[in-house]
């Protein structure tokens, strides 16, 4: 069987060709400086395992920096049997199926409260998932007949989010975090989880999303689900149905 062990592909199987670019804090002015900058780039590439490596482009950025583009060959092997993937634990459903399953399971609309918390003013993420307009050609959750969406917008304080979730009888709380400076997204998510308390009857399903999240960290941060970059409204709707169904099962037992 081919392909259990692989290398990057340039134009020939197994050639191991990769490209990378980076900036070094060295000048690129005189001939000596240029030679030294390129030498420094090659040394770095070598230590990263590129052999042979070639600096195909180098350019001074201001008086103190050099930008480099490097191509080279890696000898590392990727063992596909050792690749770990976060498996999707739920099926992708169409909007019609989502509506049907909510109706069957709840007999009422599923309530989602969404917000951006902390100082994060970016509403792009939450709007892409919630607004009718949606994202990537898929309509947002507002479009789903059996989902009631309460979008609180940006910079919502956590106590207000908790109060609104309670007042609306939220089945799920959806929080988007774009700003990641000083790990603000991690801190805010932990605070969110603490404010809602441990999973149990009456606590809504907690979902966070944002481009820089690691989806495997949900348990560590105390939330039920983390969505990363490229998530579509349909992913979220499908997950909601899945989470809801599991919750119902638990209750029956």
């Amino acid at each position, binding site marked *: 069987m081919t392909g259990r062990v692989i290398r990057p592909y340039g134009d020939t199987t197994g050639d191991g060709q990769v490209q990378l670019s980076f*900036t070094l804090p060295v000048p690129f002015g005189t001939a000596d400086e240029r030679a030294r900058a390129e030498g420094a780039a090659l040394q770095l590439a070598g230590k990263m395992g590129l052999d042979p490596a070639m600096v195909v482009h180098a350019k001074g*950025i201001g008086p103190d920096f050099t930008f480099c583009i490097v191509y080279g060959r890696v000898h590392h092997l990727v063992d596909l049997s050792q690749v770990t993937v976060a498996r999707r634990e739920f099926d992708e459903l169409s909007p019609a199926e989502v509506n049907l399953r909510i109706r069957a399971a709840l007999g009422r609309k599923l309530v989602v409260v969404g917000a951006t918390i902390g*100082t994060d*003013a970016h*509403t792009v993420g939450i709007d892409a998932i919630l607004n009718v307009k949606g994202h990537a050609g898929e309509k947002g959750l507002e479009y789903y007949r059996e989902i009631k969406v309460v979008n609180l917008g940006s910079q919502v304080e956590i106590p207000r989010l908790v109060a609104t979730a309670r007042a609306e009888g939220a089945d799920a709380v959806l929080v988007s975090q774009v700003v990641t400076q000083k790990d603000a997204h991690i801190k805010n998510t932990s605070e969110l989880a603490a404010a809602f308390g441990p999973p149990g009857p009456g606590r809504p399903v907690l979902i966070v999303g944002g*481009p820089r999240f690691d989806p495997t960290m949900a348990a560590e941060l105390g939330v039920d689900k983390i969505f990363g970059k490229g998530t579509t409204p349909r992913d979220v709707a499908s997950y909601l149905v899945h989470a809801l169904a599991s919750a119902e099962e638990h209750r029956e037992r």
Partner: protein
Amino acid sequence: MTQPQAAEAGGKLTIDPAVVAQARLLASQAGQPIVEMARSHTTVSVERAVLRLAGLSGSDGDGMPLVNHLVDAVRAQVGLEHGVALPAFDAIAAGRHADLAALAAAAAAGQAAFRLPSGADADAARAAASQALAAGFARIDANRLVRQEMIARTSEPRKPWMYLIVATGDIYEDIPQAQAAAREGADVVAVIRSTGQSLLDYVPEGATREGFAGTYATQENFRLMRAALDDVSRELGRYVRLTNYASGLCMPEIASLAGLERLDMMLNDSMYGIIFRDINPRRTLIDQRFSRQVHARAGIIINTGEDNYLTTADPVDAAHTVIVSQLLNEFFGKEAGLADEQLGLGHAFEIGPEVPDQFLLELAHAQLVRELFPRAPLKYMPPTKHMTGNIFGGYLLDAFFNLAAVMTGQEILLIGMMTEGIHTPFLSDRDLALENAHYVRSAAGRLAESFRPEPGGFIDRRAGQVLAESVDLLRRIAGDGLLNAIADGTFGITRRPADGGRGLDGVIVKADGYFNPAGDILDGGAR
């Protein structure tokens, strides 16, 4: 101010001047009730701006500005219906406090008593206040002259101006980054604010080194950055402009600080804070009138935020909401005294690359804006929604954005980053982005003079369609009222009721005898 493109850009589309006149009339009908509201109300931030223009700065040990203490104390004792200046300067005239700073410190300690003076006492307080404000405006006027002298001694950059953002959170990191950006070709440097600042009901003090996704706008940060850009302007022989954000709950104060510290451009949209920050609509619209009057006086170019609508709504379906908002921003701006050359009306290149004829649609929108506002230094924003992480594809999309900009004579070009949405730009990202823009400006900078969309062709028809949709929407807004239109989700598909959002408690109805010496100077327009 020069606008070479403006003169060349007119009259390429077959748009009916009567329709354009109709659109402007409707915009003024929609806007006039808002102006009446702004004239008959004040806000806590307008009153704090008066104190800042009168020279009051500084904060208490906890960082709360003295202007907040003084305004809060006056409000608690005698209300703000007559403005802060009358009771404040009366308290100083009574001899119990040496000056505004001493009075504010006493107010912070709960040791200042205020009254509403009448007769000769009121006359004396008004005279003292007007004198203090005259000094503030003298500084703003002097700064305007310094800017002109700096441009004369260095040079005015070629259009379109290359606009770059720095945002480290630390002003002392921002400074070398801004200078590096200028050396790489940036004509305008924007120091993006810490993301929470728009919702603070006070302006932080001093040089700041901690911020989230941006650096706090403070008077000292403004001063430090302008001085650093003056140094690099002299070094490069090219005047590098500084931009910040007069938005959020402290819009009037930040506008005043910008004038006092010679900032050159300010983001200052009439509706942005309402739609995207959930700030109360009344508060925002009252604050923006005063802030625009200050910008007008200071020779500051405002940048409006219509690009944001296209990141929320569909950029094809909602193209006309951009035009409608621009016409409203133009009306409010001119009413507040801004010249056409100070109206950096915003729009954006946000149509998805998968949409057929995407580039033609973008050209139609950009050319329409160019022709509707021939003298305005238009601010054109790069693609953000469709920067997917494919940096190579993103670089190509940015090149098309740059090409649309030069073909349609845009004047302020926010430089698109191929790593948009991945991380705050690396040094190399900025350098590559500028290389892209410089290449297009050099290779195709004069393409505008040869770009003639065929009358009745796709671009021409699309522009006409967007204009017609704009007139329809303006008619509805003029009929329903702007506040109702905002409440109905007309802009950025976000509903904002007139009494919702933050900051409504800071809005005060003016009483008879309301006194605002800054407002009097600004309304008089005297220079």
